[in-house]
C-alpha cells in the first residue's frame, strides 16, 4: 500500500512535473505555478507514451520493452529537467501562497466538493460495460506481456484490431500497474481516476486564471472552479455528458478526451487568443496544441477528429478576429506529428 502510494506520487506527479518544466517555463507567465507545469507535463507525458507505444507496437508487439524504454526515457528526461531547473523548482515551491482571507471560504468549499468526488471515486464502484474493454485490455497486457494480441472480452488470441489498437490509454494503465505495483484493475478504477479528476480541476483552474487576470478579479477563480465541480456533481442528466463520463467511466479513453484533452486544448486556445491580443508569439501554445492532438489519439482514434474539429473552429474564429491568415498553417503544423504517427501505424502495424 505504502509503496503503491509513493510510486503513484512519483509516476503521476513528480515525473510529469519534471517533464513539463521545459515547456512551462517558456509560457512566459507572470508567475510560474505548479498547475502550469502539471498541465504541460500531462501533455508531454501522455504524448511521449503514445509515440513509444506505437513504435513498440510496430516493432514487436510486446509490453515489457515498452515498460523498460518508457521508464528509462521518462526518468532521464525528468532527472535532467529537474536538475537543470532546480532553482526554478525552488522558486515555484516558495511562490506557493495561502489564499487571501476573503477567498478562503470558497477555496475550502471547492476542496470539499472535489475531495468528495475523490472519495466517491476511491470508495464506490460503478460497473460499466466498456470497462470490459479498457480494464481487461490492461489486465491482459500485464498478464501476457503482449500488446493488443487478445480479445479483451474473452482472452482468445486475435490479430491486431487496427481501429482500437492505436489508443495507448489502456496500455498506459498496464504500464502504471507495473510501476506502481498494483493490479491493473486497481489502477483503472482507483489510482488513475483520482489523478484524472484532480487534473481536470487543475486545468479548469488554469482556464479560470485566463478569464480573470487582474488581482482584484482573482477571487472569482475558486468560485468558478467550485461551480464547475457542482455542475459535474449534478451533471448526470444523460449517459452522454462529460460529467457522467468523468464520475462513472473516469479512466476510459472517451472520458479522458472529454474531461482532460478538451479543457487542455481550450486552455491553449485561450492563451493563443491572449497572445494575439498582446501581439506576442504563439509558438509554445502551438507546440502544446500538437501535444493535445497526440493525447487525443492516445485516448481514442476518434480523438484524431474531435480535437482538430475544436481547434479548426477556434483558430478560424481567431483568424477572422485578428485578421491572421497564418492560423491555417498553425493548424496544419499541430496536426502533422499525430497524423504522421497515425499514418505510420496504419501502414506498418498490421
Amino acid at each position, binding site marked *: 500500500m505504502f509503496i503503491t502510494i509513493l510510486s503513484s506520487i512519483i509516476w503521476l506527479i513528480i515525473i510529469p512535473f519534471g517533464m513539463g518544466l521545459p515547456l512551462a517555463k517558456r509560457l512566459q507567465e507572470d508567475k510560474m505555478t505548479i498547475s502550469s507545469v502539471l498541465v504541460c507535463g500531462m501533455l508531454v507525458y501522455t504524448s511521449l507514451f503514445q509515440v513509444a507505444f506505437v513504435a513498440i507496437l510496430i516493432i514487436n508487439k510486446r509490453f515489457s520493452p515498452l515498460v523498460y524504454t518508457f521508464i528509462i526515457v521518462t526518468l532521464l528526461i525528468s532527472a535532467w529537467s529537474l536538475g537543470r531547473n532546480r532553482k526554478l523548482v525552488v522558486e515555484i515551491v516558495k511562490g506557493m501562497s495561502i489564499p487571501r482571507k476573503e477567498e478562503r471560504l470558497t477555496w475550502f468549499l471547492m476542496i470539499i466538493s472535489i475531495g468528495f468526488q475523490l472519495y*466517491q471515486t476511491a*470508495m*464506490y*464502484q*460503478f*460497473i460499466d*460495460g466498456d*470497462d*470490459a*474493454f479498457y480494464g481487461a485490455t490492461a*489486465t*491482459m497486457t500485464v*498478464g501476457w506481456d503482449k500488446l493488443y494480441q487478445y480479445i479483451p*472480452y*474473452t*482472452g482468445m488470441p486475435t490479430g491486431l484490431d487496427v481501429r482500437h489498437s492505436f489508443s495507448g490509454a489502456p496500455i498506459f494503465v498496464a504500464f502504471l500497474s507495473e510501476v506502481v505495483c498494483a*493490479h*491493473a*484493475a*486497481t489502477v*483503472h*478504477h*482507483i489510482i488513475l481516476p483520482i489523478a484524472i479528476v484532480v487534473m481536470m480541476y487543475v486545468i479548469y483552474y488554469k*482556464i479560470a486564471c485566463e*478569464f480573470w487576470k487582474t488581482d482584484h478579479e482573482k*477571487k*472569482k477563480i475558486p*468560485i468558478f472552479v467550485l*461551480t*464547475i465541480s*457542482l*455542475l459535474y*456533481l*449534478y*451533471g*448526470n*442528466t*444523460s*449517459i*452522454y*455528458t*462529460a*460529467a457522467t463520463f468523468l*464520475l*462513472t467511466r473516469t479512466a476510459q479513453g*472517451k472520458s479522458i*478526451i472529454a474531461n482532460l484533452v*478538451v479543457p487542455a486544448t481550450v486552455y491553449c486556445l*485561450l492563451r493563443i*487568443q491572449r497572445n494575439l*491580443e498582446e501581439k506576442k508569439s504563439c509558438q509554445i501554445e502551438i507546440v502544446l496544441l500538437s501535444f493535445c492532438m497526440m493525447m487525443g489519439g492516445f485516448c481514442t482514434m*476518434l480523438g484524431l*477528429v*474531435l480535437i482538430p*474539429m*475544436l481547434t479548426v*473552429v*477556434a483558430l478560424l*474564429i481567431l483568424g477572422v*478576429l485578428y485578421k491572421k491568415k497564418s492560423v491555417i498553417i498553425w493548424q496544419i503544423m499541430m496536426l502533422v506529428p499525430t497524423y504522421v504517427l497515425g499514418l505510420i501505424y496504419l501502414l506498418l502495424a498490421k
Partner: protein
Amino acid sequence: MDTIQLVMQLYQDYFGQGYFIWLFFSCMIYLWLTEKEKTRRFYLIYVTIGMWVVFFCPLVTYIGVRTIFSQETYYRILWMLPIYPVMAYTITKLVTSYKSKVKTGVIIVGCMILVVNGGVYTYAHPTFAKAENVYHIPQVIVDICDKIEEEGEWVNVAMPPEFLESVKQYSSNIRMVYGREHLISHWGFKEPLYLAMTAEVIDVEELTTLAKESACQYIVLAADRLLDGNLKDYGYAQMARVEHYTIYVDATTLE
C-alpha cells in the same frame, strides 16, 4: 431518420433530463448581451456558436455519421461545447456582481436551486455501490476466479452473463468461451454455449456437450438456475460453492 431530425434528437438526448439545456441557452443569451471582455467572449460565445454550427450542419452530420462517427457516437462533438464553463462563468459573474451581501446571498441560493433542481445527482445512479475490494469488481467474481485460476496457464470457463463484464478485468489467465459482446443485442453474437447457459431451463446434456466441444474446464452456474439433469452425469463434478454460485469442473481434468 432525416438528418436534421437526427441531430435534434441527439442534442436533446445529450442534455437528457432536467433543464440544463435551457439553463445553458439562457446563460448564452445573457453572456451575449453582457460580456464584453475579448478572451471570455471568444471562448464562451464564439466557440460555442462555432461548435453549434458544426454539430447542426447537415453536411457534417451526413458525412460524419457515414464515415468517422456513427449515429451512436456523433453526440461526442457536443463534448467540445463549453456547457459547464458557460454556466459556471455566468453563475460566477452573477454571484460577484453585487456588493450587497443580501443580494449576493439570494443569488447564491437561487443558483444552487437551479443547479440542484435542473441537474441529476451523479452518485444517485443505482449502479453505484460501495466498493467490495481494491479492484472495484464484485468480491464473488474475485473469489471464483481465485479458485479456478492456474498461474501461467489458460483455463477455459463458461460464466453466467452477470459476470461477463468483470471477469477479464481481474483475471488474465481465464479464457471466456463467450464474452461481453453477447450482452449487446445489436452486435448479433449468438454463441450456442451462451444460449444454452442463459436458457430458462438449462438443458444439461446440451450445455455439457457444447462445453466439452469448447474445451471448457469449468462451468459456473447460479444456484437458483433450473437444470433438467445433473452435470455430474455428463462429466462435470461440483468443485466448490462461492456464495450462491456453484463451480463445476470437467472431471477428466482432475484425473
